């Protein structure tokens, strides 16, 4: 671990060039207030552009903290985080929204607006960052089609299945063509058969060059995808394996 941290520090100047990782954690420790045990404990990891990474580990192992740190919803107690080439410690609060425009997010609970239909839910993400209406009219149907919801643009969320709602959430996360897509247990509320469809959409998004980081408990999915697996346990990285499976460490 210490070696990795040192080499990352040395490499920083070169990493700032063309092949800079889109997510770069250097010796990051995060301790929440009123907690003794760190949520992340000296974590160093790089995620390159276009990669698909599974973040696995038991509840409380630090997966969500990792994602929150990438979004700058939390600050690390020590260590450096670079996302999309920006040093988050030096990024002013004023610029955080611009960072988040380059990151899409998908959650276990979908987080759709119940009073808006599919189209409006996806368009909302563009409206609130001030995109012109003509642009919204053009791109939203494309993304709705990409996630496999063509013909359902005018359905309300409560008329859709869980899998379809998650597709809407993915469309919303992807509609602004983010550099990174963070997915926190996206299949957590969905049955295994439907999950395969969700993973296909994530894979499709990944093929457009978007880096995907997915935190999950779902061993079957991790095993079937054969992508890079980073395993966390008690805030430490215990495994980082390309083309890995879920249960190898046990």
């Amino acid at each position, binding site marked *: 671990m210490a070696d990795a941290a040192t080499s990352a520090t040395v490499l920083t100047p070169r990493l700032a060039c063309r092949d800079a990782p889109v997510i770069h954690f250097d010796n990051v420790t995060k301790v929440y207030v009123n907690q003794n045990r760190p949520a992340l404990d000296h974590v160093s990891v790089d995620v390159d552009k276009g990669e698909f990474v599974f973040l696995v580990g038991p509840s409380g192992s630090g997966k969500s903290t990792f994602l929150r740190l990438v*979004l700058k919803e939390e600050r690390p107690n020590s260590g450096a985080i670079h996302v999309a080439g920006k040093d988050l410690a030096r990024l002013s609060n004023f610029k955080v929204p611009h960072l988040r425009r380059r990151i899409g997010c998908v959650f276990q609970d979908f987080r759709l607006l119940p009073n808006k239909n599919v189209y409006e839910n996806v368009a909302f*993400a563009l409206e609130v960052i001030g995109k012109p209406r003509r642009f919204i009219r053009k791109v939203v149907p494309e993304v709705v089609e990409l996630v496999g919801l063509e013909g359902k643009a005018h359905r309300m969320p409560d008329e859709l299945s869980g899998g379809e709602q998650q597709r809407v959430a993915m469309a919303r996360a992807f509609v*602004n063509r983010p550099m990174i897509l963070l997915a926190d247990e996206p299949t957590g509320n969905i049955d295994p058969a439907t999950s395969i469809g969700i993973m296909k959409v994530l894979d499709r998004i990944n093929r457009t060059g978007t880096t995907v980081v997915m935190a999950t408990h779902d061993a079957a999915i991790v095993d079937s995808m054969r992508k890079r697996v980073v395993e966390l346990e008690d805030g430490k990285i215990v495994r980082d394996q390309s083309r890995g499976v879920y249960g190898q460490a046990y």
Partner: protein
Amino acid sequence: MRANFIFSEVWIGLRRNLTMTIAVIVTVAIGMALLGIGLMINAQVGSMSSYWSDKVQLSAFLCMKNSPFDACKGRGTVSAQEKVALQKQIESLPQVDRVTFETQEKAYENFKASYSSNSVFLNAVKVEDMPESFRVKLKNPDDYKSVFDALSGAPGVANVVNDQQLLDRFFGLMNRLRSAALVVALIQVFAAILLIGNTVRLSAYNRRRETGIMRLVGASNLYIQLPFVMEGTIAGLVGGVISAVLLMFAKIVIFDSMQKFFALATQLTWSDVAQVITLTTVVGVLICILASFVTLRRYLRV
């Protein structure tokens, strides 16, 4: 910035919190109207004191037939000699600048001029009812005491009135009214701030899904906060408009009729009222904006 998006959000927010919005509007309207009344009283007192500052004098009213004053008991109208003697006596006093005699006809004319808008009062009074008087202009209005005493004892003088005292009594009343209006206005402003705080908190809670998603997809703080602040601003503005109507009403009903009952009062002009309305509306809207921002910082993590 997409204006219609913001406005539709604001409209939804206002409708969802309709009762709270109405409470804010009413509180702001009453608070600002009272603040405005305080300011209008101020303007009234200011214009009156500048109008009267060089006109203040002592008036020595002379005895006439059936005069009710003690000094005139057992005697009729003052004679011509007594008038001449009085005028000499007054002119000899060192504090006196000049003295003029006011006849019954002149007094009636003045009376008509100051009570022109009160016809009932006007019809009840005849020329013969008006007392004759000496109008004494002092070199220094503060020296009235010795002149006042000298005139009070003089034969043929019914009573002596110091205009300054009348004015002071009137100003005292106005100042108390103004203080009362301002105190109530302050309480209303305080209530308005708390109400706006609550409204924003409710609104932020109602819209936590939306704001959560806005944060996530990278909407700027302005975009997230603006609908809330606009809600407060619109409520403040509507309250301001209502208070403006109340103030115009007050100008017509209270301040203009004041002239009917107090001959001393000067007319409060519409430009004074316009100034007061502008000021109170700006204050009302600013209070709403500030209260919204302060509560947003607490209840809406950005």
